């Protein structure tokens, strides 16, 4: 080994000495080059010798001495046992409507004029063992009186090595329906959720306890099919067995226990993606959510959705900018309400009826230059009113909204957002709102999804 390396070094000497036609115009430079050659050679020879002595040894630079105060690298280096992060979202909001809570119905949106802390979340994630990863997300929420509520927003495991391109997720999680439902407020492009999602999934999005199986198809382009089986009760399954379902059908919800597999919530989805060019990507999906609702003992709800995301990113993107991204989702819900007692007047029986709601939004983002994004969004949602006229509930009115915003990231770990909303609600009127947000991130930075 040592001899071959020395031979190599000798070869180097002869070949480089022979190659005098270096692109150099001045004789002065050539002279200097020759002078320095022997020095350089000596250095390289010494280096080669040491490499021959212990081949895989790292380069020459001296190892940094291990100081007693050296950092606890395993705690902070990525992927070591557990990543810990904390996201804090603060806001200041003003609207022409005094009842901000009726205008902004999402859980992570302002509900009063003035300051707000719409979201504070502690996120933990890591690899459990060679077979599983796990993720937990604990959310602290301050209501309009400053009272703090705590909720276990997500907590799930994810398999890493199942055969057949399968993957199972289990626990409580935002269900893969459409594009935005799975995203945390930290990843939203606007300060509030699209109206379509509010209408179908309620203030907190569609999430529940259950299992999800996913299959990455062996196609040449990305195609993934997922199926989630979930419990169908609670606020986070708003269109199903939710205690707040009277806002949808105007009747008194019944106690409806789980009788069989048909009383679970099923959420299938197929998503596919192609790279249109080396700088443009298209991602499309269709989703469904099917389960029982509690207007009656055999009443059911079906939700269908399609989603589309297109993104262009510059081939010389710096920090991910510039880019242009378009995102749109359309959802329809068929809520089969059974004959039920009226909520306002229980002596009155409401006839069974099928209520249909529709919602759509489209948004365009422009990443102008590093750390600056401008966005516009149009929102629309409408629906059948239950025949019994209780539905003055603001959740049920036909409404549209136009929003525009500007987001500035001082670094990857903080952001300022300025957003303006123009709202139109049938029968209520028009409103203007200004939403300001500041968000910070402490700790590990989770990898971005597409």
């Amino acid at each position: 080994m040592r001899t071959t390396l020395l031979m190599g070094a000798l070869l180097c000497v002869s070949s480089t000495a022979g190659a005098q036609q270096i692109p150099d115009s001045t004789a002065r430079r050539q002279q200097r080059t020759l002078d320095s050659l022997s020095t350089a050679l000596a250095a390289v020879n010494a280096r080669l010798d040491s490499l021959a002595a212990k081949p895989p040894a790292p380069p020459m630079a001296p190892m940094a001495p291990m100081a007693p105060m050296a950092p606890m690298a395993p705690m902070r280096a990525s992927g070591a046992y557990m990543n810990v992060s904390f996201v804090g979202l603060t806001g200041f909001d003003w609207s022409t409507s005094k009842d901000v809570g009726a205008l902004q119905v999402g859980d992570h949106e302002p509900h009063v004029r003035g300051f707000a802390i719409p979201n504070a979340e502690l996120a933990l994630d890591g690899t459990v063992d060679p077979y599983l990863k796990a993720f937990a997300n604990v959310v602290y929420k301050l209501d309009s009186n400053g009272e703090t509520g705590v909720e276990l927003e997500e907590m799930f495991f994810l398999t890493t090595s199942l055969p057949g391109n399968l993957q199972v997720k289990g626990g409580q999680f935002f269900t893969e329906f459409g594009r935005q439902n799975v995203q945390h407020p930290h990843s939203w492009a606007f300060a509030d959720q699209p109206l379509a999602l509010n209408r179908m999934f309620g203030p907190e999005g569609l999430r529940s306890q259950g299992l999800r199986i996913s299959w990455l198809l062996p196609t040449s382009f990305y195609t993934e099919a997922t199926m989630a089986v979930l419990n169908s009760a609670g606020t986070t399954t708003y269109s199903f067995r939710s205690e707040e379902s009277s806002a949808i059908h105007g009747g008194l919800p019944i106690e409806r226990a789980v009788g069989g597999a048909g009383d679970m919530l099923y959420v299938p989805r197929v998503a596919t993606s192609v790279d249109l060019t080396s700088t443009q990507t298209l991602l499309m999906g269709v989703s469904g959510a099917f389960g029982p609702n509690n207007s009656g003992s055999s009443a059911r709800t079906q939700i269908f959705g399609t989603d589309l995301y297109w993104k262009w990113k510059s081939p010389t993107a710096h920090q991910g900018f510039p880019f242009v991204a378009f995102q749109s989702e359309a959802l329809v819900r068929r809520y089969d309400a059974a004959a039920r007692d009226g909520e306002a007047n229980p002596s009155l029986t409401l006839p069974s009826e099928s209520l249909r709601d529709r919602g759509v939004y489209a948004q365009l983002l422009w990443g102008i230059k590093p750390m600056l994004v401008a966005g516009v969004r149009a929102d629309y949602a409408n629906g059948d009113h239950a025949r019994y006229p209780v539905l003055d509930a603001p959740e049920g009115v036909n409404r549209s909204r136009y929003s525009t915003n500007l987001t500035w990231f001082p670094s990857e770990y903080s952001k300022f957002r300025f957003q303006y909303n123009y709202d139109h609600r049938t029968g209520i009127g028009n409103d203007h709102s200004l939403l300001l947000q500041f968000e910070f991130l402490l700790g590990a930075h989770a990898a971005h999804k597409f």
Partner: protein
Amino acid sequence: MTPLTHLVVAFGALLTTAGAETPRAAKPLIVVATTPDLAALAKAIGGNAVDVKALAKPTEDPHFVDAKPSHIVTLNRADVLIDGGAELELGWLPSLLESARNSKIAAGAPGRISVSQGIHLLDVPTSFDRAKGDVHAMGNPHFMLDPLNVRVIVTQIADRLTKVDPASAALYHANLKWFLGTLDQKLLAWQKELEPFRGAKIVTYHKDFVYLAERFKLEVVETLEPKPGISPSPAHLAQVISRMRSEKVRVILVQPFQSRKTAETVARQTDAVVLDVAQQPGALKNTATYFDLMDSIVHTLATALQEKR
């Protein structure tokens, strides 16, 4: 109930029909590299026995690659994944790997080559404080411009390819031998070309040329970014300009994805020249291999330093 039943049945049918995958016979090993520089090394060592694909484009910022779904498919079918490992890909690779569900390239598997293992990293922080910008906890991940690091890396790649695909061991070994021989010769030539400029001062946009500077005895006196990952501010640029003037720094290096305009503004006020260099093979013309790339960087630097002397 009917639409639900239909959907469940359709979903089930989809699951059962499309599952069969034909086994491949003596196909080339599928090697995926996160960045084109690693891909170039894998090609040099693997030759015809491997089919190499890079995830990042040569011209884009390797810190911020989109986790495109097509990358999930690429990683799902990979036999070997080569990544830098020192947090360079932290913002996008973990979520891709999570979706790719390929245990052959999981951390610790023979098919996963994280090349920073075995490299002595520079700029390792002694304290963790993001007031200093987006500092990588493990050290500076732009280590490929030191040829001696590449020596370690190609050896590592050859070892692992041999382990995963013993049938082509002779080829990998021969290619490694050729590569190391050429590298030793080239290193000598590069050192010779830059030797006249020992101690020369340069400015870069990001802290991405520190290994080059360390190996070839150049001094990076300032970066246009005030701190890693923080965009240049007027106040900081003013400071850079005054330092460049007082220390007579006449060369600014920018990569294709960094702001040339900012560099030009500074250069105009300091009588400096802006050099277009790239760390990724293929970003600039005639830089397809690691040797071509280094030839180009060294020659561009030497020419400019000579002219601005």
